[in-house]
């Protein structure tokens, strides 16, 4: 089976800066930062919101690589926040199960 050849690449529209920068402001990932902060992993969630709050300002100043970096950092810290929350939950569960087992042994 043969596939039709891919359509020729569209030339970039006039006036758009050449290079790897997108023409749209990167997502600030603010929703994830707020989600991480509300669901309790404080320092990391706030770091995510700090980066999110830099994105549109940097973009408005034309500092596109820095805006993209801030966007990526906001996402990264929200993810680390979630990971830290899960790890804390697992440790808590292990301690709770262990403590429950010990108290069961000593009081039964």
């Amino acid at each position, binding site marked *: 089976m043969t596939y039709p050849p891919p359509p020729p690449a569209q030339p970039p529209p006039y006036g758009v800066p050449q290079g790897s920068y997108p023409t749209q402001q990167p997502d*600030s990932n*603010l*929703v994830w*930062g*707020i*989600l991480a*902060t*509300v*669901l*309790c*992993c*404080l*320092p990391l*969630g*706030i770091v995510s*919101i*700090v980066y*999110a*709050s*830099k*994105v*549109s*300002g940097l973009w*408005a100043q034309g500092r596109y690589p820095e805006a993209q970096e801030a966007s990526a950092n906001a996402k990264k810290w929200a993810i680390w926040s979630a990971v*830290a*929350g899960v790890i*804390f*939950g697992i440790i*808590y*569960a292990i301690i*709770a199960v262990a403590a429950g087992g010990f108290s069961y042994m000593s009081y039964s």
Partner: protein
Amino acid sequence: MHVRSLAAPLVVGVAAAGACAALWVANPTVPGGILPACPTKALLGIDCPGCGSLRMIYSLLHLDVASAVHYNALGLVAVLLLVWAFAAWSYGRLVGRRVSSWQHLRWSAPTALALTLAWFVVRNLGFGPFPALYV
């Protein structure tokens, strides 16, 4: 219609519903339950901006808005905004285009940051009316 593109919102919705169901059963408003306290509170003894959120959502599920406000007023606002963002995102997936929501506004992130930091401070103040905010 892009029904297949609704798969991702559906996954998020089901996950959130499952979390709410677990929260309903576990009842975080009774001390000593199976749900862990916030790590910040457990380690440092202070309220973080997210402290009380589980109890706030539990109260909200039971339509007890007054208790929800008491447990975490800013968290309640955040939950409403998150539901809004989720609805806009799901609608955008359905109609096949990017639907703008509050988080894309110019000052949303700086405002969220300022409110979060202010909330972090005031709920840990030990004088005047502020201790009422400590949960």
